[in-house]
């Protein structure tokens, strides 16, 4: 490796600007460092994430913490393995300049993440991603945020690394809404909770005095819809996340439940149960008009929009047992797509559009599975006493769900790669169900 010139000390662009490394970028004739994540099991790519250097003690401390969050994010994907930092030869301060790539090849790091915290408050961070064996900069970004948003800034760096190395959008700067559970089964206390994708910044939105179920975050992650058991009838309500203000949808005729936002956030699908008959309705949030989408004596519930908003997958027992159907978003003729043995429910259209996740009950076990929107290529990803409520990471590569692993056991959140590998628990302070994974935060 021949020594390279130092980075040009030119003025950095505005927040979020790309940090180029000038002449280092183009190296024609050499394959880019790239991880193919479309196949099943991939050997995790060994990478190094150096603690970020800092201008001053507070900045250095923050730089350490940011590097830890980035490492944890990348490791959690199962696609990367962060090399223990005690093996690192070059110091964070030395990494303000071009890395000494030989030092990183020596520990077999394929990629290297470096950074500098220029200011701790407000937070101003520069980070770079390096191809160690190619000796090139693959990505550089300058990010600014209030100091309180330092974890989000770290998640955005992890997303940038993930995106550059896999070719897929990241999913680390996201939130998870879910139902926190406590108390005995016959008098379960349930609360709406929201946390970061990695379990940090956990907050309760409700106090447990009313039964609440099935939270759903709006596509802009500004409001949340959920079912609350409140007289005179259980109904779906909307709440602003920032203010906690409740937005009343008005009185529906009967019990409204199973809320789902359309991809553009303008429509809220609900199921309305009336006189024993449950149908799907579209509630236009601007005009507050309710439009019926299905009719008949069957149960039609658990709807899910296709990402282009043109179709709706849903659960219905119109054929005699609960199965999955797809219909136009305006209602009309529905086509059954589940034909395997067992009882299907909770279809969730992948944000990529290529798959529909579902839960399936067969021979005493609950499974999470995926199939193509036409019903072909069904694959079961999990099996347990009770696996329920699949929800997708915004890049459509990871499915989150709730699991009770044995009868009477704890109910917890797990994620699994769509390939069926890398199942892991998402830590929550108490039992957890009904997860909903947000879109990437704006």
């Amino acid at each position: 490796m021949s020594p390279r010139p130092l980075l040009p000390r030119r003025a950095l662009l505005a927040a979020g600007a790309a940090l180029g490394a000038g002449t280092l970028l183009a190296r024609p004739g050499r394959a880019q460092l790239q991880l193919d994540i479309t196949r099943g099991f991939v050997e995790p790519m060994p990478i190094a994430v150096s603690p970020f250097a800092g201008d001053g003690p507070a900045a250095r401390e923050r730089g350490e913490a940011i590097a830890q969050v980035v490492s944890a994010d990348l490791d959690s994907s199962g696609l990367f393995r962060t090399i223990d930092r005690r093996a690192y030869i070059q110091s964070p301060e030395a990494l303000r300049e071009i890395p000494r790539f030989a030092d990183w090849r020596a520990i077999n790091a394929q990629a290297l993440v470096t950074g500098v915290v220029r200011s701790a408050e407000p937070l101003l961070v520069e980070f770079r991603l390096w191809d160690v064996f190619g000796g090139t900069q693959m990505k550089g970004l300058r990010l600014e945020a209030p100091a309180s948003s330092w974890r989000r800034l770290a998640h955005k760096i992890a997303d940038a690394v993930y995106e550059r190395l896999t070719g897929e959008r990241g999913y680390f700067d996201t939130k998870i809404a879910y139902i926190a559970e406590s108390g005995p089964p016959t008098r379960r206390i349930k609360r709406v909770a929201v946390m970061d994708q990695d379990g940090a910044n956990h907050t309760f939105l409700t106090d447990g005095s009313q039964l609440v179920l099935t939270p759903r975050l709006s596509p802009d992650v500004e409001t949340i819809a959920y079912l609350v058991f409140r007289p005179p009838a259980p109904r779906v309500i909307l709440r602003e996340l920032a203010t906690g203000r409740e937005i009343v949808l008005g009185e529906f005729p009967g019990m409204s439940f199973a809320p789902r936002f359309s991809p553009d956030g303008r429509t809220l699908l609900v199921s309305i149960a009336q006189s024993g008959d449950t149908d799907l309705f579209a509630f236009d949030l601007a005009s507050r008009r309710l439009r019926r989408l299905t009719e008949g004596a069957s149960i039609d519930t658990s709807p899910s929009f296709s990402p282009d908003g043109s179709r709706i997958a849903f659960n219905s027992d119109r054929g005699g047992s609960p199965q999955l159907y797809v219909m136009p978003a305006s209602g009309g003729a529905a086509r059954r797509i589940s034909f395997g043995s067992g009882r299907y429910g909770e279809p969730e259209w992948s944000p990529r559009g290529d798959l529909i996740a579902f839960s399936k009950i067969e021979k005493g076990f609950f499974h999470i599975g995926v199939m193509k929107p036409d019903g072909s290529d069904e694959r079961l990803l999990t099996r347990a006493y009770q696996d329920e409520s699949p929800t997708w990471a915004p890049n459509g590569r990871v499915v989150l769900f709730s699991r009770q692993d044995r009868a009477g056991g704890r109910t917890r959140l797990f994620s699994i790669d769509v390939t069926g590998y890398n199942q892991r628990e998402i830590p929550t302070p108490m039992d957890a169900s009904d997860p909903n994974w947000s879109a990437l935060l704006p």
Partner: protein
Amino acid sequence: MNRRDALAALSLLSLAACSSSSDTATGSAAGGAGAGAGLPGAGGVSSAELGGPGGRVPPGTQQDLEVNVGDRVFFAFDSSVLDDAARQTLERQAAWLKQFPAVSVTIEGHCDERGTREYNLALGDRRANAAKSYLVALGVSPDRIRTISYGKERPADPGHDETAWALNRRAVTVVNVTN
């Protein structure tokens, strides 16, 4: 509240206390060992019918419905069909509701845990309405019957076997507390 009103309220209260204590007295007499009944002779053993503990159940109440009528009906897996036993229970409920025309009720539909949360909310609604429809067909005014579905959120039996599930697939008639 002036003094006279307060006194009136007090006397009403004591009247209520009297009537309820006389109820209790009647109850304990019926439920007691029946002093004075049977032969009082030396060495003789007297006997009397023993009622339920705690005395007579107040008529027209939830307790009355539970003890003397039956407050719930059960369903097969993923079914809202009323079997013979369920219909008999609902026929007794209909007669009881006619006996207490001031009583209104809420029928709660419930499911076992072997279904998805949202499907079960719909199924619970179907079960509650199956029970309601039968009561209405038997002449009870639909205005006196509300329904609510709890899906699988409120099992009666916390167990995880067929016995528990059978107890949890139910529609429970609950007397509304008026206020």
